């Protein structure tokens, strides 16, 4: 499903250049649930941005679902994000002026799906059927993250990318979120890549990729 081939990423920093990724290579099979771990500055956020087609690698190849997406233009990248990828962020990133249902619908809208019943269904699957009309400010952090999961999953993308999804939550909510994620992952069979720095969260995954200084340090199966 995901193939990264010697990905490098270099940012211009004034006159010098800052290289964040020094040739990252790994493969993720369809339906796999993988955690990416590493200390801060190891390049795990940049890797996730590249995986999510929010950013393009300086060199190397990235094959998503069999297609080379490392040289696409901005328009094509937006299409890939809309149809292939569901994002879950550490800080939920819900639109504050919209209800839970509207937030989930928004995720469908850009994928060209106009069927609101899919949004309702997704909210029901994260256990928030009765919170459709609530705004983010009226919900707890755990509930907001569940709305975000529903938003990412509603369009049934082949790949879900989660950026420290439990980073802002207490341990009880964290467990709840991880429970939902693993359950839905099993049911829906999509590929899930998650960034985390907590070993406990990584243990939910089938495989852990450790990054350090912009390179893959090692892989393990917990």
């Amino acid at each position, binding site marked *: 499903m995901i193939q990264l081939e010697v990905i490098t990423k270099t940012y211009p920093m004034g006159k010098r250049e800052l290289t964040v990724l020094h040739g990252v290579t790994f493969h993720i099979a369809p339906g796999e649930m993988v955690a990416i771990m590493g200390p801060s500055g190891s390049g795990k956020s940049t890797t996730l941005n590249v995986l999510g087609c929010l950013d393009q690698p300086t060199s190397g190849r990235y094959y998503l679902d069999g297609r080379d997406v490392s040289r696409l233009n*901005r328009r094509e990248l*937006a*299409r890939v994000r809309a149809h292939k990828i569901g994002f879950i962020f550490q800080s939920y990133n819900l639109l504050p002026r919209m209800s839970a249902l509207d937030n989930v619908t928004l995720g469908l809208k850009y994928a060209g799906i106009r069927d609101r019943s899919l949004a309702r269904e997704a909210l029901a699957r994260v256990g928030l059927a009765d919170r459709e009309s609530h705004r983010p400010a009226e919900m707890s952090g755990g509930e907001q993250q569940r709305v975000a999961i529903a938003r990412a999953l509603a369009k049934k993308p082949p790949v879900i990318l989660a950026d420290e999804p439990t980073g802002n939550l207490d341990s009880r909510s964290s467990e709840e979120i991880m429970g939902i994620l693993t359950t839905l992952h099993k049911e829906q069979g999509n590929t899930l890549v998650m960034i985390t720095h907590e070993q406990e969260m990584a243990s939910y995954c089938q495989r852990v990729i450790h990054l350090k200084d912009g390179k893959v340090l090692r892989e393990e199966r917990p």
Partner: protein
Amino acid sequence: MRFLDPLLSAWRSVLAHKLRSFLTTLGIVIGVAAVIGLLAIGRGAQNEIIASIESLGANLVQITPRTGAGGAPTLSVEDARAIEGQIANVKTVAPVVRATHQVVANGQDIIAVSIGTTPGYLLAYNLEVASGSFFSDYDVARSARVAVLGANTANDLFGDANPVGQEIKMGGAVVRVIGVLKPKGAAIMSPDDNIILPLAFMRQFTTQQRTPQGEHVVHSIALSVADAQYSPQVVAEITDLLRERHRLLPDADDDFRILSTDDIAAQASEAMSIMTVFLGAIAAISLLVGGIGVMNIMLVSVLERTREIGIRKALGARERDIWSQFLLEAALLSLNGGAIGIALGYGIAATVGYFVQEITPIVTPEVVVLAATVSIGIGLFFGFYPAWQASRLNPIDALRAD
């Protein structure tokens, strides 16, 4: 639904900042209201002036002398007779002599401008007699000592009493009033303040002036064309006739000026059009300022919603989705302003029309459509840059913003 959805979402975000949206809109409101109001008032004034010119007599042609520096007066009674005898499609010709006289009657003592002319004057200037009658050709021929008073003159001399049959003294002569004219109001060339006398009688007590050819000088000649369509032809023929009578060399300028009501109306109308365009241009500047206000607020709005833009992009929004969203908001803002401005402009025009009775403001549908189009256009034009800026935001940076 497909088109309604983005519209609804734009509307919601306009409503999310009610005061700000209102203040932004205000610039457009004032601009559009100014354009609509000023154009309506300008157009109303234009119509009023044309109507007042046409009240002169729709088919009136006036001939006045145009004497160069030190030139002798040239227009004569004989010219008037020649026109009457030789030019086709002319209904009446009235030679006009003017003089200022002291007039005494009924214990009142006033200075008035008297006009010596023939009965044709009544028709040429589209005048009506309120009481009594106008003098006849016979009165002119026998130099009858009779006078017709303008409405104000009658009122100054006799107040509410009926002047018809009364006697007035002017220039040492005793004159009998035989008629009073209906008032014409503020119209151009209003005879309200005049006294009208038979031409021959007038000549008896005014200094006789002669043209170089020894003819009797008049101050102007008024004539009425049978139908407005003949007006250009009549003017051309009179020009030839008078040049011949005045023995002008082919390369000499005319020593007279011929103005038809149509010409005057056209000139006044053109002058008013320029005025109206000028007013409209000033109003358009305020519309421009309003547009800059919209741009300003849209830029702030983009800045504020950077994170929202990042989220939308991460969810797969294309650049087109982002800029159309912001453009729609800008257009909606200024369209609202336009709608309120049109209503306000109507109100201003109606209020002016209510207090200034001479002017009936005219709001034409074209102006309304134009104002609505221009206000949407301004929204799109000034919304374009902020919207473009929003669409080009880097999603990673945008997601990091707070």
